């Protein structure tokens, strides 16, 4: 019995140690970036910043907040996230609602059509040529419209709607509502959890997407923050790795010559990630719920 207790205790301790190490490894890169962003740039260039800033300053953040290009990019990202999330959730859920109705003419065709897209797609180049021929390059809408219908979300919405009690809709119908009215005044108000979850995933996806703009947007006024950041980081890192400083430096980096760009890049990154970090603690229970409705049900 005594032996068993010791074994049990050391087992628990081992589990805790493993998880503490894991948490540290996950959090440290964030922490280190915050520290670098709060350090004087020229001092950062000397190296060796790990746990605490050596020469503390808010300067990097001041530069970031004063930079017009960054402000513009933030604006584009915010607008894109709001408009894109709204349109996507609106049309995706409506589509899914229609598909729950067994008597919908063409329902089977629509369903099969959706499912095929989960296994096969035209790929990057045909999509690129399509966007090009639609004259959507260098428009705000290219950042929003192609991603409106997310087939995976159609299926999640549909599963959710099908589990709602049928009596609700019947009574709405008795009161003379058509499907559109029923959907807006009965179905949507009681779909809070799934709406919140999928809005959140969609919003995070739109906020984080950098690739769409990197191939479809050349106009600097329409550049979202992640794409701009990708360019800054690349020109900065590339010069470091290939040790040909300044070779491919972007406009932004060039403007800030003299200051070590690293602290500045970190400050931009932190500001970019801040919206997610801030909503994260409040919404993480939705994240979990979202993954589960997305995966365990058929």
């Amino acid at each position, binding site marked *: 019995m005594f032996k068993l207790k010791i074994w*049990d205790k050391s087992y628990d301790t081992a589990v805790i140690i493993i998880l503490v190490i894991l948490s540290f490894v996950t959090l440290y890169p964030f922490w280190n970036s915050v520290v670098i962003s709060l350090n004087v740039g020229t001092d950062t260039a000397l*190296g060796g910043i790990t746990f605490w800033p050596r020469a503390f300053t808010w300067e990097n953040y001041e530069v970031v907040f004063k930079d017009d290009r960054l402000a513009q990019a933030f604006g584009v990202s915010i607008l894109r996230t709001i408009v894109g999330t709204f349109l996507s959730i609106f049309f995706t859920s409506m589509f899914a609602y229609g598909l729950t109705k067994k008597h919908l003419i063409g329902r089977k065709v629509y369903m099969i059509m959706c499912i095929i897209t989960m296994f*096969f797609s035209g790929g990057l180049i*045909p999509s690129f040529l399509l966007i090009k021929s639609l004259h959507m390059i260098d428009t705000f809408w290219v950042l929003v419209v192609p991603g409106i219908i997310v087939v995976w979300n159609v299926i999640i919405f549909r599963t959710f709607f099908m589990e709602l009690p049928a009596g609700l809709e019947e009574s709405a119908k008795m009161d003379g509502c058509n499907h559109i009215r029923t959907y807006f005044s009965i179905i949507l108000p009681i779909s809070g959890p799934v709406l919140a979850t999928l809005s959140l995933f969609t919003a995070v996806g739109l906020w984080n*997407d950098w690739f769409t703009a990197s191939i479809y947007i050349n106009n600097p006024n329409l550049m979202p923050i992640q794409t701009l*950041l990708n360019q800054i980081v690349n020109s900065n890192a590339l010069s470091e*790795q290939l040790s040909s400083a300044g070779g491919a430096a972007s406009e932004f980096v060039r403007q800030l010559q003299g200051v070590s760009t690293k602290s500045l890049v970190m400050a931009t990154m932190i500001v970019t990630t801040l919206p997610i970090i801030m909503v994260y603690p409040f919404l993480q229970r939705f994240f979990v719920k979202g993954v589960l409705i997305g995966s365990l049900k058929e």
Partner: protein
Amino acid sequence: MDTELQAATYKEKRHTTRKGRLRSFLAQIDLQVMVLPGVLLVLLFSYVPMWGVLIGFQDYDLFKGIFHSDWVGLKHFNMFIHSPDFFRVMRNTLAISLLKLFFGFPAPIVLALILNEVKHLGFKRFVQTVSYLPHFMSWVIVSSFVISMLSIDNGSINILLQRLGFIDEPINWLSRSEYFWGILVSTGVWKDVGFGAIIYLAAIAGIDPHLYEASAMDGAGRVRQIMHITIPGITPVIMIFLILNIGGILYAGFDDILNLTNNGANTLLRPVSDVLDTYVYRVGILGQRYSYATAVGLFKSLISVILLVLANVLARRMGRASLW
């Protein structure tokens, strides 16, 4: 009221007879209006590009368009298979995705098993919250972390290894091709292990607690319980995700590779970082060889679909869970 409802249901059912088809369509015009935008958007943005893969069989000319460009059959497929890039791209794609499967697939399962052993609920929740945070960061941010951690003059990894005495000189990690696969795979695990564990934790929570009580009565320790109850209990879920992963075996990554190689501009890493998807991007979008890149992309999707179907058939034969 009741008769009205009956009439409505009758109307909706009547389209099974051909005569009333148009009428029943008009009767449900509200529903059709609701699905119309969805149908149109899927047709436009998913099906038009599918039709667009035809340019892989053409010498596509941007000015002539898909209707007037010359048909060349399998020329571009042959060109890819016989090109010097083929071996390199295929090797990298398979190696990276197999490495990701080998390390990335079991990692969330192991984390879920470990988390399940924690008795203190607050600590468990803390670790979970921390572990799935990186999943919500963009690859731009995550790769900046990695680049910063590995940098030669500042990187914490170099500092740590030097202080521990493992290395004398800081290593320029991202300019040495022999480290790239390791960096890529571990970054992927770092980013997604916590998020992946959510599903397995839910599956574990669904296991009948009586099984644990019964096994404890029979004298099973905690390790034995994991081996004989928890793991068998979540095997169906594991199988489904394994099948999905096998379907994606030609997907070695895109965002992560592009961001860690400076959008492919890091030529030092190209011999080990070029995979099918980044290759399509480079020759197609940057090099504007549209037909060739489309052929490469099509080659990839076809093999992926075949693999997915095969994996599913195999899984069904084995009497385990299947996707359809």
